[in-house]
């Protein structure tokens, strides 16, 4: 940015001219008062008083004005140039201050002081205090005007004097202080009294300064605390929600300036904006993790969050107006909101403000384009949002807000991880993350089919053509029918209701979450069976919730054979005979064949057929019998495996008892995709074979 232009050149030359004039006019006899005044001015410039509005009150002007009235223009001119230099040197932490901004600032002071001098001369006859008020006001106002032109000529602001009202209000405190302090200093009672008064004032200034610093430290701490709490609560609710409160707080801070909201109430409202959703932390978290629309009762529960938030916050904020802003932040301008359905200006201004900030954050997160955000915001103006407040906002405001939020709008780490998982194709993880907790109720929507065309398909998660078959049948039969549609890991149930020959309503319900939930539940039950069965069978039967564990301990595949009819049962024994004879096994061949026969017979009784595999490891022969049937029903598993004589079919129900008795180990896995049994038969150890030979 180029600082030097015609305007700043004029200011700079005013600064230089004022300084030179001051040096020429300098009278040594005034050096003492000048010195002390300058000392105080410098202290005040270095240590600005922070106002609750967030602005800094640099009280150096107090000293310039005193010098102007007491010593004359020349002294105040020198002091203002030195003060400007100190101000820049301190702000930039270097003695080499950029010349143009420094001299321009000095020039602005000198211009303001000159205007004040004219007023001082003109009002000399008035009472001192009134005169001081006029002088100080002139100084502040001229300064504001000169500063606005800096904004225009240096920073290229299109409109100036936008916040003039607010700025004029802000001159109140400096003018008031000047009116109190300057007449006190300005007394012709001699140096000592002056020195005393000066130091006395300085002492109070430093005291105020100290307390204001403390106050701001507390204020900052409170802000940080509520931010941290909000973050924690948000991440508990749902990870993707975290950061919302803090962003709304920042948005609020920026927009309050646009709306010229009174600065003294500003901080409290920003606090409210940060914690406006705190009531959500008292709701069950599945509500926030749910995909799709909430049920009516869930919605009712959700809507209590603004009331619950207020309950929490009345303890923190004693101001009722402020907590009301949270209670009503979901009220809509047209009266369709909650909790009370207030309309228009019945809704407290603060609540309307938070509603806009809240909406703006949602839009900024969702859309990257500021024009779209502005359009959508305007769309909601008058229905959901206060049109007057929205009317003040411009695209520039939105862009400014987005810049301020740039760090916070980035994708948080956990979402990145989720995306990476998707890339890895870990769909299961993705699903389970979605269906955490009670969120097993899926999304529903209604699609209409009329004369061959589908309507309301915007949010249909799959291609509408997949509904064709159902539509054709419903149309033909004119009856209510349903169909399941599957795509990858996702399942939908679709019900078709014929209205007439040309129109069908299609109710689509997402079942994936329900199915995933059921599968998770089943896995948990199966896992608990692992322990139960192992313990109750004295370790003879091992049950596995997943097939992979079984696959891991299989040895070298030797042979395999399909079993489809009963005549394959004796054939399978003949098939195995060879492997039994060639390996020296602990158990008698008859028993082994019996155990296998039980397993293969089960396969025919309970499934339509399967296959038998022979594996060998160093210690044992493994016979794997598997089928692709519907598996042992979940609730039948312990009885089937453990209870002797239990059978659902016409049989003895002693299969597992024989398998356990006539093998060295039984391993079972069963699921809706089939059942798999592995029977272990140990080789005889050398010792045993020797013993046998000796006996025979």
């Amino acid at each position: 940015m180029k600082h030097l232009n015609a305007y700043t050149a004029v200011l700079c030359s005013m600064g230089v001219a004022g300084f030179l004039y001051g040096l020429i006019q300098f009278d040594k006899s005034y050096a003492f008062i000048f010195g002390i005044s300058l000392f105080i001015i410098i202290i005040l410039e270095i240590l600005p008083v922070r106002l609750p509005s967030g602005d800094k009150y640099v009280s150096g002007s107090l000293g310039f004005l005193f010098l102007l009235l007491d010593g004359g223009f020349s002294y105040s001119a020198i002091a203002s140039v030195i003060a400007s230099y100190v101000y820049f040197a301190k702000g930039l932490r270097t003695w080499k201050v950029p010349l143009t901004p420094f001299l321009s600032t000095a020039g602005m002071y000198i211009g303001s002081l000159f205007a004040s001098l004219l007023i001082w001369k003109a009002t000399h006859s008035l009472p001192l205090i009134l005169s001081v008020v006029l002088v100080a006001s002139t100084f502040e106002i001229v300064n504001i005007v000169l500063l606005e032109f800096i904004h225009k000529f240096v920073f290229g602001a299109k409109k100036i004097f936008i916040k003039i009202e607010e700025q004029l209000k802000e001159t109140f405190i400096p003018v008031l202080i000047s009116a109190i302090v300057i007449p006190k200093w300005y007394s012709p009672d001699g140096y000592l009294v002056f020195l005393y008064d000066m130091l006395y004032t300085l002492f109070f200034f430093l005291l105020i300064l100290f307390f204001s610093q403390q106050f701001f430290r507390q204020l900052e701490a409170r802000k940080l605390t509520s931010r941290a709490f909000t973050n924690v609560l948000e991440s508990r609710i749902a990870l993707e929600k975290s950061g919302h409160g803090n962003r709304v707080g920042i948005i609020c801070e920026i927009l309050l300036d646009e709306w010229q909201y009174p600065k003294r109430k500003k901080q409290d409202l920003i606090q409210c904006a940060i914690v406006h959703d705190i009531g959500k932390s008292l709701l069950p978290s599945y509500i926030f993790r749910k995909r799709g629309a909430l049920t009516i009762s869930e919605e009712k529960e959700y809507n209590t969050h603004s009331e619950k938030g207020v309950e929490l916050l009345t303890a923190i904020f004693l101001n009722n107006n402020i907590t009301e802003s949270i209670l009503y932040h979901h009220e809509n301008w047209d009266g369709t909101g909650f909790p009370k359905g207030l309309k228009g200006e019945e809704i407290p201004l603060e609540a309307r403000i938070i509603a806009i900030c809240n909406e703006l954050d949602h839009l900024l997160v969702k859309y990257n384009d500021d024009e779209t955000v502005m359009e959508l915001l305007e769309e909601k103006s008058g229905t959901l949002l206060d049109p007057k407040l929205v009317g003040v906002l411009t695209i520039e405001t939105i862009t400014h807000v987005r810049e301020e939020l740039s760090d916070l709008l980035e994708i948080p780490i956990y979402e990145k991880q989720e995306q990476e998982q998707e890339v890895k194709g870990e769909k299961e993880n993705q699903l389970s993350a979605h269906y955490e907790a009670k969120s097993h109720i899926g999304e529903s929507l209604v699609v209409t089919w009329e004369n061959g065309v589908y309507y309301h398909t915007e949010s249909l998660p799959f291609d509408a053509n997949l509904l064709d078959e159902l539509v054709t049948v419903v149309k033909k039969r004119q009856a209510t029918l349903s169909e399941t549609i599957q795509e990858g890991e996702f399942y939908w149930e679709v019900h078709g209701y014929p209205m007439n020959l040309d129109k069908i309503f299609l109710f689509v319900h997402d079942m994936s979450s329900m199915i995933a939930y059921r599968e998770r539940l089943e896995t948990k039950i199966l896992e608990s069976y692992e322990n139960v069965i192992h313990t109750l069978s004295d370790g003879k039967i091992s049950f596995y919730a997943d097939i992979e564990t079984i696959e891991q301990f299989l040895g070298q595949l030797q042979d395999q054979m399909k079993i489809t009819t009963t005549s394959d049962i004796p054939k399978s024994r003949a098939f195995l005979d060879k492997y039994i004879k060639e390996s020296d096994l602990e158990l008698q061949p008859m028993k082994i064949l019996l155990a296998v026969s039980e397993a293969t017979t089960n396969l025919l009784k309970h499934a339509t057929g399967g296959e038998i595999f022979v594996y060998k490891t160093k210690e044992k022969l493994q016979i794997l019998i598997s089928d692709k049937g519907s598996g042992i029903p979940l609730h039948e598993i312990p009885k089937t495996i453990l209870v002797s004589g239990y059978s659902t079919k016409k049989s003895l129900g002693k299969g597992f008892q024989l398998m356990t008795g006539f093998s060295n180990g039984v391993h079972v896995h069963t699921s809706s995709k089939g059942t798999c049994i592995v029977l272990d038969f140990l080789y005889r150890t050398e010792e045993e074979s020797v013993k046998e030979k000796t006996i025979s």
Partner: protein
Amino acid sequence: MDLIVTQQKNDSTTIFKIKGTLDISTTNLIEPHLKELDDNVRNLLFDFSELEFIDSTGIGSIIDAIHLSQEKNFRIQFQNVNEETEQIFDILGLYEILKAVQGEVV
């Protein structure tokens, strides 16, 4: 081929000579023999001397015979049961069932 059941009648005693395999593939072969039993039969004798293989399904059909014996009031006896088969009968509780039905095992 897998199972041959030969019937032999001596007065009120019928002998079923079981030859081959008695499992799911052959149980249907023994059923007709049981159905055709005379009402006046007092003893049914299973001769297992040529039994090659029996499993729980096969034993299931012997238990069917035991149930029939209750209805028609005759006694069941086994003969020539080899050691292995006897072990299976024992494990599956066949003798216990028989004992419960007719008080003793012959």
